[in-house]
């Protein structure tokens, strides 16, 4: 029986069809790490926290059940699939759920510049809602806003790794606008902070996004914020 302590024999498990031999006290995550396959985790913290709360590390068993890799103990002959369409979809939805309650303030977040696991995962799984500003410092760019140049980065969906800024051009919003109120609000405050004329921002928005279904929503948010922060309506 693989649960008895002191049993040093290894057991066979099958990760995505690949055979691996691991000690019987291992979890799926430890087994998977042994062969270099990656499973995303957010709440896992080794021995300190293995409570499987975030549900991001879910993998699929032969019988279709989804189990958390960080906490599920391996058994002899266990067959695990880490990258099926169902697993990917579940990971995507979990990330979307996290974003739904997450306060996105990448521009001022201490995890800026490559320390944000959530951003990395969102980009990898195509979950949108985080602005380019979160990626820009990661690329080692100087912020155009600090130089007084209007850049649409704070309002644009991340995922391009801030290519244009690397090349020396302010962001033109080609991946489309963010739509969340709190993100737009942060962007607005950022523009105010660096004294970027709102008219410049609005004209760029009109140029690149007037055909977007979210354009009206964005401009209405801007009016609200200008009333809130500047006491008068713009555009």
């Amino acid at each position, binding site marked *: 029986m693989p649960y008895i302590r002191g049993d040093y024999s290894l057991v066979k498990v099958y990760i995505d069809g690949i055979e691996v031999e691991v000690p019987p006290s291992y979890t799926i995550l430890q087994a998977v790490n042994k062969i270099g396959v990656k499973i995303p985790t957010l709440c896992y913290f080794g021995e300190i926290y293995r409570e499987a*709360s975030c549900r991001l590390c879910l993998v699929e068993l032969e019988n279709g059940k989804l189990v958390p890799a960080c906490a599920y103990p391996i058994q002899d002959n266990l067959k695990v699939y880490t990258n099926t369409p169902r697993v990917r979809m579940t990971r995507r939805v979990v990330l979307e759920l996290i974003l739904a309650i997450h306060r996105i303030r990448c521009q001022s977040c201490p995890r800026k510049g490559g320390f944000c696991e959530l951003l990395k995962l969102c980009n990898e799984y195509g979950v949108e809602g985080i602005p380019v500003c979160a990626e820009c410092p990661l690329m080692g760019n100087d912020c155009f806003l600090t130089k007084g140049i209007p850049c649409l980065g704070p309002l644009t969906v991340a995922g391009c790794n801030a290519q244009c800024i690397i090349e020396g051009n302010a962001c033109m919003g080609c991946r489309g606008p963010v739509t969340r109120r709190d993100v737009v609000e942060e962007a607005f405050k950022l523009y105010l902070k660096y004294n970027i004329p709102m008219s410049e921002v609005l004209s760029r928005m009109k140029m690149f996004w007037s055909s977007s279904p979210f354009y009206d929503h964005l401009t209405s948010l801007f009016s609200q914020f200008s009333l809130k922060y500047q006491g008068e309506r713009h555009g």
Partner: protein
Amino acid sequence: MSSWTLLDRCCNTCWHSIDYPCRNYIRCRIEGPLCHDVSECRDKRLRRLKEIKYGKYGFKIKVPMASCTIAAGSKEVYKAVIDEVKSRGIRADISITGCMGLCFIDPWIELIKEGMPPAIYANVKPEDIPKIINEYLNGSVSSAFALRHRTGKAKDEDKVPLLEEIPAWGKQVRWVSRNCGIVNPESLEEYIAYGGYRGLERALKMKPEEVIEEVKKAGLRGRGGAGFPTWLKWKICRDQVSDVKYVIANADEGDPGAFMNRLLAESDPFRIIEGLTIAAYAIGAKQGFIFVRVEKPLMAERLSKAVEEARKYGLLGDNILGKGFSFNIEVILSAGAFVCGEETAMIAAIEGRTSPRQRPPYPATKGLWGKPTIINNVETLAHVSLILAEGWKEFAKYGTEKSKGTKMFCVTGAVKYTGAYEVPIGTTIKTLVEEIAGGVKEGRKIKAVQIGGPSGGCIPADLLDIPIDYHTLQSAGAIMGSGGIVVIDDTSCMVDVARYFTAFTVVESCGKCIPCRVGMKILYDIMTRITEGKGTEEDLEILEKLGNIVKNASLCALGGTAPNPILSTLRYFKDEYLAHIRDKKCPAKVCRKLIEYVIDESKCIGCGTCYRICSASAITKTPQGKYRIDPKKCIRCGQCYSTCPVNAIYKR
């Protein structure tokens, strides 16, 4: 008559005591004396057994004192009985008893006199007592609701039906609930007199492995909802090597609309304790807990008292019945959390923490304080006591191929006869709802039946021929759950019902994992928008997709079953959803933002009752002297609708 009870020694030949117990103590209470043949001792026992049945004077009055009967007024009835007996100097024994499960006759009383048929009187008011007692003592049972058996000697006996002739009773199989409404729940003596503790006595004469084998042959499945084979859970725990093991009785019946555990615990608490003791013996535990919901205080009180009594007579404690087996029980009150019905959350609550844990490891291997723990539902334990007492064949007589035995179901909602009914598994929903519970009230149509509480699903009216079994309900989109069945008629809106259950789960979610905490809230927001007429067809797709993800990705069974009400109503009642979305109408006229209360001025008599009653000041008088409701101010409480003396107000 001395105050000698069955539990005492019959004479000095008997050497039984708590410290040196006799192995045949239980059997001897009724069939004894077993170790010596003395007719006085035998007669003493028989006399006492008769006393228990008919009282000291041959006349006994039983008044039920369970939460539901007390709420219906049985305390006042009890007082009235005492007053009447005292004032008229009647020689009678007045005893309390538990609930029969026929809630629609609460409060009831039973009169038993030697020679007369035991008669049950329904919906009794304190002022009826003198008449009832008088009539019975004069040999007539004309006001009785039912008789337990006939004697042919009472007047008007043929006019009163037998209890088993009433469908609500006769179609049941009262296996675990056999003592409910018959014994005094506070008396260990009565429990034993009616056959109690025979199960434990027999179990202690077997090896623990044999006890597990008996439960295996019986095919008992957990009655708490999941239906896991009880013997397997016990075996896994038994096989664990550990110095300490625990057993826990799950009395945290949290499903709204389910009260069979409460009924069992308040009416026959010793049965649960016996079952728990047998379970402890089978797996090798010395300490047990009974985890009771704080919202049901009488349940906790009865169980605590029963534990005390059992301890007093050596049925708990050291060297129980001379087998060298020691076991103690602690009754623990929860602090109010539905999730505590889940095994790992219950363990957390006993440990003084919160939140469920990821399984595996399962509690049977690593549970309370890391030790192997068995958690069984109260009803399961009640079955255990009877399986050991009567043998597995008696249990397996009933039920289906895959699920043997009987189960208690609480049928509530829009039915005529609300109550807790015990039937063999495999009985169709139709039999339960229509034949036993009497079907829906006059003028209404049955729409659906919700089984399994907030974790279950709705079965539409045209599928009621489904036999109630674990797998049949699952493929229909519901779950057996703890056995709560809520009947829904055409005055209820299915979207509103689904939203109601979702609201419940959102509040009760422990918040540990993301799918349940965030996902259920999003589902709830979408359901709210739909009931307010702001839903879109895209919302239905999201409900389906997100619902399935929450189901598969949640950490514990709460999140794993929470989307069931939404998913099952989407499956069978999509038209109601579409009506809310496309037509912005609620077909059942329930969702408040989509209905209006209107006064039909042609019927209005201008009495002004509605005007006076309206707390939102939304009703004004027209120049013609009639009344009119302002839909903008109206809060749709329905007060005017229910109080209008000429029914001039309608919903649209």
